[in-house]
């Protein structure tokens, strides 16, 4: 077993200029080793993470990281995810950050666990650590007969150990599992064979909601003389039913819905990002990566184009659900309210529910249980609050509350529309001399947070004593919301990139996979194609000219072109580095456009991606491909519309169609691995490049430039008609 070198090795033996590797932030906040890694009496390893599985394969990847660092078989490692009071608070599972943060925390904690155990073994055997060898937790030394395993070496000091500083980790060159294929997902078998989702949780009562037509409607009248076969909960305009039988709960909710009359209490603002709304938007030009309030610089441009995307849905396949149990009289030591939820941020959820119910934060326990894929901020948190409201009315009985399909489509926070104005000037040599990017839109950030001004849970505003949501405010950190990936990956001699924030969305809008990156990259990469066409240069050559010293982006571009064999034919290209910091992805799309129906069929996608060190190649591919398919669905088919009272008009899969099996392309994915670098998030990396590759392929196939999504046959005809 090679001895692990301290981080200072690069600085030389004399220690001059000694580099100190900092601890990952999670371990600074929670230094207690036992909060991250535990060895159980039955010979297993339990790893604790505050992050959650949302179909991205996270638990499998974290298991691999821990097994690798500890030198135990992955099958021995169980990863326990997000449970308040038990797992470390690692914030919300979002932004493709979990491998970077929780992965780094668990890797370092595992390295410490291994180091402590080997030090103990070294003392017991009288053999220096450097000569010990570990295989599946069993420790051996040459010439020593006695064998020890990790589990024999646990003592009180190990259990109480506080991580003081960084300890060297296993060099990637020695990896056996990390970066290697063949890891079967830990959660898939159960999902195909048994109860595995929060929807499947056992409960005494099943609850359903009776929702108004929109959040702007309030209850006018409810004839509650209906004979009551279960429990009816009415609090202002929050109406729900509960019954021991699920089918009865559904039937009863339908009957109550028939009796309820609603009135439109608030008129919602217009949904369109029209000229008037753009003029009233607050401008934040980006300076050193951050949006700052102030006038944008005028840079003259000669070539301009405007792109847009509509409101989009997360449209989870399973309607949101949660369970809640409100204990009648709490023991001082036990929580009063226990929730099972598919929330991506259980700690925030707990804080906000505490505020909304008046319970103490410590009086609430929230455990993450898998839901259907959510792709951002969907109804999971709202459903948890709904379940808590019903549970409060029936103390001592566990309630499982589910939204209907209509609730889900009608009330999830939507992905906001975007309006993007691009401008450029080309010099005599066909290079971009000046570049402007103005992106307009509503907030992409309204997850519930205990630090927010309001209570951002859907039903809060419907209560008899309403709790108002937070006013929407522009997010001004680098690479969030509207301006995520508004900065181009290219080096231009002059550029001005500006975020334009519009307050007052007509509906709730929040994080949808990639946030602003999808619209911004769609616009940038479509525009780059338009400019390449103008300059009479091939799309890939034109991009290369502007990639400057970005060798990793060039390598990804090359890999996509090599895989696809180039761009000849009906093909288009898209390229971006997610958040200008994480996974760099290039996508080539090939399309066929039917002359008579104007329908676009995507025949094939090639994806190349650099996500730093690859932890789980199969999981990474799955994420990259899933994002690409979802983006195709958005771009080809999806748009939310509203009725005259501002209610979402698309309430089922027929009025909100998504891509089907017969419509998905074959996909080939190439990973550009960098074992020497840290891994970076990739789950959202392909949505932007795929969107642009599609538009550029449609242009290659038809000569039609589609700048407004979705690219339906009607849209194509409109563009053709000019």
């Amino acid at each position, binding site marked *: 077993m090679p001895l692990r070198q301290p981080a200072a090795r690069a600085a030389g033996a004399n220690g001059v200029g000694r580099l100190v590797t900092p601890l990952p932030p999670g371990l600074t906040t929670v230094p207690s080793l036992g909060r991250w890694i535990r060895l159980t009496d039955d010979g297993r390893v339990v790893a604790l993470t505050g992050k959650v599985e949302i*179909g991205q*394969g996270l638990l499998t990847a974290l298991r691999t990281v821990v097994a690798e660092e500890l030198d135990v078989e992955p099958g021995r490692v169980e990863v326990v995810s997000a449970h308040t009071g038990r797992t470390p608070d690692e914030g919300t599972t979002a932004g493709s950050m979990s491998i970077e943060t929780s992965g780094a925390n668990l890797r370092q904690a595992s390295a410490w666990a291994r180091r402590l155990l080997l030090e103990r073994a070294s003392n017991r055997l009288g053999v220096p650590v450097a000569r010990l060898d570990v295989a599946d937790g069993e420790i051996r030394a040459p010439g020593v007969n006695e064998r020890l395993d990790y589990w024999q070496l646990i003592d009180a000091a190990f259990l109480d150990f506080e991580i003081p500083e960084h300890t060297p980790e296993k060099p990637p060159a020695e990896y056996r599992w990390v970066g290697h294929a063949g890891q079967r997902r830990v959660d898939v078998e159960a999902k195909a064979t048994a109860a595995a989702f929060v*929807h*499947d949780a*056992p409960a005494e009562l099943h609850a359903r909601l009776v929702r108004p037509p929109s959040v702007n409607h309030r209850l006018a009248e409810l004839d509650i003389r209906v004979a009551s076969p279960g429990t009816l909960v009415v609090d202002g305009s929050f109406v729900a039913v509960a019954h021991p039988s699920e089918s009865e709960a559904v039937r009863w909710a339908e009957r109550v819905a028939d009796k309820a009359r609603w009135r439109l209490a608030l008129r919602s603002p217009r949904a369109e990002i029209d000229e008037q709304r753009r003029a009233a938007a607050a401008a934040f030009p980006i300076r050193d990566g951050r949006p700052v309030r102030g006038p944008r610089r005028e840079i003259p441009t000669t070539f301009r184009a405007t792109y847009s995307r509509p409101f989009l849905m997360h449209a989870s*396949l399973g309607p949101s659900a949660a369970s809640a149990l409100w204990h009648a009289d709490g023991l001082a030591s036990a929580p009063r309210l226990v929730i099972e939820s598919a929330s991506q941020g259980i700690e925030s959820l707990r804080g906000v529910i505490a505020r909304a119910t008046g319970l103490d934060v410590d009086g609430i326990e929230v455990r993450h249980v898998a839901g259907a*894929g959510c792709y951002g901020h969907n109804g999971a948190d709202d459903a948890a609050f709904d379940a808590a409201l019903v549970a409060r009315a029936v103390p001592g009985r566990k309630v499982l509350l589910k939204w209907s399909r209509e609730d889900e489509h009608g009330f999830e926070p939507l992905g906001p529309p975007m309006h993007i104005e691009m401008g450029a000037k080309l010099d005599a040599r066909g290079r971009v001399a000046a570049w402007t990017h103005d992106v307009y839109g509503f907030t992409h950030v309204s997850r519930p947070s205990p630090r927010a001004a309001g209570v951002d849970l859907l039903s809060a505003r419907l209560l008899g004593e309403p709790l108002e949501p937070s006013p929407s405010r522009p997010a001004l950190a680098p690479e969030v919301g509207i301006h995520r990936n508004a900065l181009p990956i290219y080096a231009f001699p002059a550029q001005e990139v500006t975020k334009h924030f519009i307050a007052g969305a007509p509906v709730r809008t929040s994080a949808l996979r990639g946030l602003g990156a999808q619209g911004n990259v769609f616009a940038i990469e479509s525009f780059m194609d338009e400019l390449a066409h103008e300059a009479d240069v091939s799309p890939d050559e034109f991009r290369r000219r502007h990639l400057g010293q970005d060798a990793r982006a060039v390598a990804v571009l090359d890999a996509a072109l090599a895989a696809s064999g180039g761009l000849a034919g009906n093909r288009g290209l898209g390229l971006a580095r997610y958040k200008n910091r994480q996974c760099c992805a290039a996508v080539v799309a090939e399309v066929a456009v039917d002359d008579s129906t104007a329908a676009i069929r995507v025949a094939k996608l090639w994806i190349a991606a650099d996500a730093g060190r690859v932890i789980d190649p199969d999981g990474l591919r799955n994420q990259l491909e*899933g994002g690409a398919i979802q983006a195709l669905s958005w771009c080809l088919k999806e748009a939310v519309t509203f009725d005259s009272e501002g209610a979402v008009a698309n309430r089922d899969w027929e009025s909100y169609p998504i891509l*089907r*099996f017969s419509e998905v392309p074959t996909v080939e994915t190439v990973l550009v691995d960098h074992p020497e670098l840290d891994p970076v998030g990739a789950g959202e990396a392909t949505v932007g490049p795929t969107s642009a590759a599609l538009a550029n392929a449609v242009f290659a196939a038809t000569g039609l430039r589609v700048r407004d999504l979705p690219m339906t046959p009607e849209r194509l005809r409109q563009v053709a008609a000019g």
Partner: protein
Amino acid sequence: MIAFRLDGRAAQFSEDQRDTPLIYVLRDDGLREMTPKFGCGLEQCGACRVLVDGSPEYACTLPAGAVANRHVETSAGMDGAVRRALIDANATQCGYCLPGIVVAAEALFRVDPHPTRDQIAEALDAQLCRCGSQPRVLRALTALAGW
């Protein structure tokens, strides 16, 4: 009581559940067969798919009474090559659509063990997946079909 077979074993439900959609009868406390998933209740997503005497049905709308004396099969009972191939290939993301896909694919492979990619896609066209697992599902099943 109304008798039927569920994944090869004898099962029953009460007379007054005759008109209840099958999915609730399968999932309620008596049977607790949780793999059929509720997605829409509208025959639009396929998450609730089960086989009734070998043909795919929507459990979200099919009245339970319709399965009297018939054989209902769910993903939980399909321990053959189709489910194995999908699990081994990690051919899912969140997995919510997976049981329905297992059922629809099983129905196809029983009739035709060597379907082409296009035939598989057509057989699965009523199964929605929002996570974008389709390419991988199609890869796993075309490999199983021997292509």
